[in-house]
Structures are given as structure tokens and as C-alpha cells.
């Protein structure tokens, strides 16, 4: 189980990122990438237990076997979805400064970028990143809270 997780989790994360990046042109997008990332984390939880992330990766001390409390729920998750919401709203507010309606989106195309050739950056990517963060943060908060029960 743990071996599988070690192999699969990076793959899931990479797939999620690629889904996110090419979401504008191929199937994918912020929402689905977010949900996929969450499954990667969920897999980690199942394979290594609830405290693994805190102890193994963030190197924080957690008393094992404690009753569900605030510190078993990774605080960063909450920050992530607050952050995401801020990005989404913020990206919507930028057009207002430019005297365009709320949430107006645009895009720029670049040609001749090394390695990729043709790259297109849509301003919607920022909004989509907000979506991604909210989904990841929100779902992980829910899963870690429910899981801690």
C-alpha cells in the first residue's frame, strides 16, 4: 500500500498540474485539478496515517492518539482556501481598475518561447488558480476534519 502510494502520488500530482495548465484548451481545469490533487493527499492519509503530513513533511510535533482537535487539522489547508478565494476575487477586481466589468478575462499569446514554441497565457489562469486553491483547501479541510474523527 505504502509503496504504491509512493509511486502513484507524484504521478497524480503531475497529472493534476498538467490538467490545470492545459485546462483552457483540453479537458481539465482548476476544479478537476483541485479534486485530483485532493485524492493524492487522501491516498497519503490512508497509506501513512493522519499525522504523517504533519510529522514527516512539515516536521511538526503532534501528540499521537490525541482526540480530534484543531492541530490535527493542518492549518495550512484553511490558509489555502482563504488564499484561493482572495486570488479569485482579486483577479476579478483587476479589470475594474482597468475600467472593465468585474471578472473580465483576456489572454496574450507568445510565439517562439524556447521548448514550447507557442504559449498562450490567459488571464483566466489566475482565476482558475483561485478555483484550484479553494477546491484543494476546502476539500482537504473537510477530509482531514472528518478523517480525524
Amino acid at each position: 500500500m505504502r509503496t504504491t502510494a509512493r509511486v502513484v502520488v507524484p504521478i497524480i500530482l503531475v497529472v493534476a498540474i498538467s490538467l490545470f495548465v492545459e485546462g483552457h484548451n483540453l479537458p481539465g481545469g482548476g476544479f478537476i485539478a483541485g479534486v485530483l490533487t485532493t485524492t493524492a493527499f487522501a491516498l497519503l492519509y490512508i497509506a501513512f496515517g493522519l499525522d504523517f503530513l504533519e510529522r514527516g513533511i512539515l516536521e511538526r510535533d503532534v501528540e499521537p492518539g490525541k482526540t480530534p482537535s484543531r492541530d490535527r487539522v493542518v492549518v495550512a489547508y484553511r490558509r489555502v482556501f482563504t488564499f484561493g478565494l482572495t486570488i479569485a476575487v482579486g483577479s476579478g477586481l483587476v479589470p475594474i481598475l482597468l475600467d472593465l466589468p468585474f471578472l473580465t478575462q483576456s489572454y496574450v499569446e507568445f510565439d517562439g518561447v524556447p521548448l514550447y514554441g507557442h504559449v498562450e497565457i490567459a488571464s483566466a489562469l489566475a482565476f482558475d488558480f483561485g478555483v484550484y486553491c479553494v477546491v484543494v483547501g476546502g476539500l482537504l479541510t473537510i477530509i482531514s476534519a472528518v478523517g480525524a474523527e
Partner: protein
Amino acid sequence: MSPELSVVLAAVSVPFAAALAIPMLHRVLGERTGYAGAVVALACFALLGSQYGADGAVELSWIPSLEIALRFYVDGWALLFAMLASGIGVLVFTYSPSYMHGEDGLPRYYAALLAFMGSIIGVALAADLIAIFLFWELTSLCSFVLIGFHTDDRSSQYAARMAMFVTVGGGLFMLVGLLILASVAGDVLGTAAVVDLGGSATTFDLAAILENPDAVREALREEGLFLPVLGLIAIGAATKSAQVPMHFWLPNAMAAPTPVSAFLHSATMVKVGVYLLGRLRPLLVSHEWTLLFATLGLATMTVCAILAVASTDIKELLAYSTASHLGLMVAGFGFATFVGAEAGAFHLLNHALFKASLFLVAGIVAHEAGTHRISDLGGLRHDLPVTAAVAGVATLSMAGIPPFNGFYSKELLFEAAVESVHELGTLGWLYVAVAVFGSIFTVLYSLRFLALFVGDRPTGLGDVHRPPVTLLAPPALLAGLALVVGIYPDVAVRAIVQSAVDATAVESHAMHVGLPTSYSPALGMSAIAIGVGGLSYPFYGRIHDGIRSIPAAIPPVSANWWYDAVVGGLTRTSAWLAPRVHNGLLRTYATWTLAGTCALALAGFAATRALTLGELGIDASPAIALVLLVAVVAAIAVVLSPSHIAGILTLSILGFMIAIFYILASAPDLALTQLVVETLVLLIFLFVIEEIPESDEISLGRVTRDALLSLAVGATAFVTVVVTTDARPDGLTETARHYVENAVPEGGGTNIVNVILVDFRGFDTMGELVVVAIAAISVLTLLVMRGRGEAE
């Protein structure tokens, strides 16, 4: 001269702004906050005064695309009412600090009082039906807070709830009336200031409606909506202005501190109903109008005057008297002649002057003598000479004795009643008789109130202190004004009453009042009322006891009994119902919520006749059919599964089949999402499910109920899908085509779903993000912080 938008806007908003600042002011000023309130009220009064003579509408555009604007309408009638509110506001704020000395919760008191003043000015000046309704209900809300000022006192709570229940309930009836009016008027006016709401034109612009009263009235009649509108607005006005049989809340509202009673429950709030009648009078006046409001007003005038005689408490007496005088105004506006409008408008002013003064006097008496029982009081002129003089002027005015100001407006009412005889015949004579009969009791209770100050002091009455000047000056000023109006009525008429009458009357007419120089029927009626009232005063005690014995013998005669019966019945029903819908078991909540949703959805389809089931062609490839078949089998297996875990695992088969269905139906985005979400949901379910106990034997009844509910939910979902996809035209809709064509040039992406999500419908996505965030926060709160509440 046309009004200034900025000044009008300031007059309405300054009190609200001041109300917000009250808590801070109270820190600095302490008990002297009331004087700050007086300054605010004075500022409003001055602002309104600067608009004196203005006539016309101004508006501040708010949401132009919906034609929603803050519209204000200034004319004599609006100014009379608004200036009355702010002017009496000045006096009440001056009076309050001494009266409310040492009470707790003063910031709340002053903030509510200021907000109330702003709402009243708002009602007076608003020219938008919605704005009128909002300000109207705001006054009820402020009144609720102020009546319930003594939050620990049970009678205060009871009275506050009653006032809220009656006036807000009435306001809702009025809202329906106003909406009907708006929709009919929109069809008639059909020009500017009309919004298109779902196919029918609607206008909320009262100024525009009042410019074409005849056309709107004709349209109302043609559609058969005249009587409903009239009746609904009458209910709103009658509850607010304490008309029979909804008069009972007003005496109970006397649980409020006396300055509140003077301000809200005599001078301003209760007159909002009368004000609205005056405002809509040119629009709705007709034969039915006269029948309804003349009858209602005169009945109130008489019944409440009789009840005032039966009162044992000075504030109760004044409260019933207020309701009785409100009846007089309603009756005045009820009569279609211009004399009627004159009676209503003039009495609005007169009554505010003498009744606010009397309430403030009653406050002084209660404050200095320590009691407000009528039988305990007497001979107060020895202790309170100035107060006695003030009370004398105001009381004689209330009784309608010449040459005090109440006399003139009452004469006008009698005149209107006499004139109605030509039109209504016998009914007109009945109006005349009832008006005189009610006035006799008015004279009686006025004399009784006066008797508090003359005669001998009862032995039980203790030391009575002299009131400070801040308590005495406000009622003295009001009584002084009443005296001036009494001696020079033409001055008041020229100053403001004439323009108020012009705004409320159908035809304009130069108004003249003065002491009568020759005999007229109205004069005779006044003479009878005063004479009989004076002669029967020696028998006051017996009349008082006689009236009191009636409701004691037959409780259903009193309106209060009905209120208690209805509210008590509702409370019992709720107490019986609550444990059945609301028993803390999740399945009960689910049952009621789902059943309610299904019933509403199906009823909605039935009401709009959307349930036209066309042929349901089955058009599926073998692959899709197979997938769906597996899904159905899985669904059945879920129901039959022996344990929760097995059930959930089987349920996920259903989910994955749907994902495959999406793939077959060439919707990769949906399939991807469905797959991942299904996995996550399965996971969360597995986390949670261990907590749920395995079910025991369930009774057959419950199984049947659950099965029926599930069938209903399934049927609703099925019908909804069929109905909503039934209307789909062949090929792409216009919206779909627009998205397809514009995805690349405007959004710069070839994944239409994503482009729609982030570019075209970004706002919806934003809303969904907020939902996700809220869900996460709720889960956190419910699960993680659950223990904390119990620990504390």
C-alpha cells in the same frame, strides 16, 4: 419651487447616521446623549424647513437597469408630517434625559428613537411604493424595540410582541396591495419609470401614479382589483393606526417609557396609517372608500372613546383617546368632500400638538407623583401649577371646546358628516349620530383627565416634586402652539395646512376656519356633544363601572381576548408540531425536507402546466443501455445490502457507471470530474459510516414511508429532467452557439467548458467557490469546534 435632492436625502439619512453614532456619543456624553439627539432632530427640522413651499419629486438613481431609484416626493402633506415628526422629536429628545435618568440601556433607547425618526421622515417623503413599505416596517421595528425597552418585564415583552405582530402583519397585507397597485399602474402608465418584470410592466413610482389618478383607478376597476387593493391597504393602515378591531395593541404599547408613547404612539407612528390614507386619497377616493373609511373611522372614534372612559390608568386613557382621535382623522379622510380632507389634515396637526403635550404631562405626573392610577391622583394643581395650566389647554383642546384648536378640526368633521347626508341619505344620518355620540365620551374622559388637577388631593398621594425645566418646557411649548393655533387658526392654515389639504383633496378649495358666527348643523352637534358630556359628568363613576362590567361578563367582546386566543392557539399548535418535524434525528429532517421539496417542485410544475408529457422515445446505443442497466442493478443492490459498508461500495458502482455513461456520451470533463469526485465521496463516506450504528429491525410502517418518499423523490427528479429537457430545441440553442463561436476568439481557449466556467460565467463560478469555502468552514465548525461549546 422644486425640492433639493441633497437636502431631502440628508433629512432622511442624518437620523440613521446619528443612530449609528449613538453608542460612541453615549460614552462621551453619558445621560446627556438626549440633547445630542435633540440637535439632530433640530437639524432635520431645519433641513425640512428649508424645503418649505417646495412641491415635486426628486430621485437618486440606484439600479438604473431595473428602474429602481430612491424617489422622494415633497409637498405640503409630506412636509407637514415630516416636520411634525422632527419637531416633536426635538422636544422628546429634550425631555428624555431627565425622564430616563438612571435607566440602563440608554444607547439602545436613543439609537432606536433616532432610527425611528429617520424612518418616519422616510415614510413621509418617499415616493416609491417599495421604499414606503420599507420605511413603514422600520417604524414598526423601532416601535418594537422601544415598547420592549424594559426587556426583563413580562408585560413589556407581551406588549412589544403584540404591537409587532399586529402592525407588521398589517404591513404585509399592505405590501400585497401596493404590489397589485404597482402592477396595474405599470400597465396604465406604460412609459418611463416602468420596469419589465417577467412580462408585465410594473411601476413603483408613486409620484407618477398620483399624476394620473383617474386612469389608474379606471384600470383597477376594469381588472376587478379596485376592492382588493382598497381592502389590503385599509388593513395596513388600520392596523398601524389602531383602528377597530385592531385598536387593542395601542393601550398595551403604553408599557413603553412615556416619551416614547408621546412620540411614537400618539404623534407620529400611529399616524402613518392616516398619512398613507391622505396620500392615496386622490387615487382611491370613491363611494366604497367613503363607506369603508367613514364607517371604520367613526366606529373607532366611538368605541375607543367609550373604552377611554373605562380606563383606570392615565396612560391607558390617553392611549384609547389617541385611537379615538385617529378614528376621527380616518373618518375625515373617508368623506369624499374637501371638508373631509380638511378635517383629516388639520386634526393631524392639532392632535399631535395637544396629545404629545398630554403624554408628556402624564409623564411628569407619573415621574413626580410616582403613580399613574387615575383613582390615586387628584388636586395636582397645588403641587404642579404650571403643568396644570399646560394640561388644561391641551385637555380642553382634546375635548373640542371652543376656542381651542381641537374644536376647529372636529367642526370640520361634523360638517363633512352633515354633507354626507346629501349623498348617502339614512347612512349619512347614522354617521352624524355616531359622531356626536362618540364626541360625548370624548368630552367625558377629557373632563376626567382635567379632574386630576382640580379638586382635593386624595389622602394616599405622597409628596409631589416640582418637575425640572427640561421636563416642563416641551409640553408647555406644544400647549402654547396649540393655544396659538386655537386663537389664530387661519395662521396655521395659511402656513401649512392649506397645502397639505391640497395634496390630499381631490379638488382644490380655499380653506377657512374660525369661530362660528352663525348657527350651522355642525355647531349644533358640537353643542350637543359638549352639553351632554358636561351634564353627564357627575355620573362618570357609574358610566365607568358600567362599561367595565361588559367585557368582564362576556370576554369575547374585547379584541384583546381574540388576540390572546389566536396567539395562544398558534403557540399550542407550534408546541405540538415542533417535536414532530424537529426531533433531532437526521432522518426526520431529511424526510420533511425532501417531501417538502418534492411537493413544491411538483406543485410548481402542475401550476405552470409544464407537465405535458410528450412521447418518451428511448434512444440509446447498446453500450449505454448496458451501462445504465448495471447502474440500475447496483441501485437495487444498495437497498438490499446487509451492511452500511457494503451499501456504500455498491453505491459507488452506480457512480462509476455514470462516469462511464458520460464518457460514452462524449463528455470527458464531466466523466473525469465524476470519477474523481466519486472516489473522494466514497472515501469520506467510509470515514463517517463507522460512526453510524447498524440498523435494527425497522417497523413495516417506516419502511413503507421511506419507500414512498424515495419513490416521490425519484419521480420528482425524473419529471424535472423530462420537463426541463423537453423544451430543448433541435440542434444547438442560441446560447450554446454563442459559446461555441466565441470560445476561441474571446476566451482564448478551445475547452469550451472551461472557458464558460472562467470567462463567460465567471461570476457563477465565484459563487460556487464561496459555497465550497462555506462548506469547509461548516465542517470545521461542526466537527472540530464541537467540543468547545460543551466544555464551556
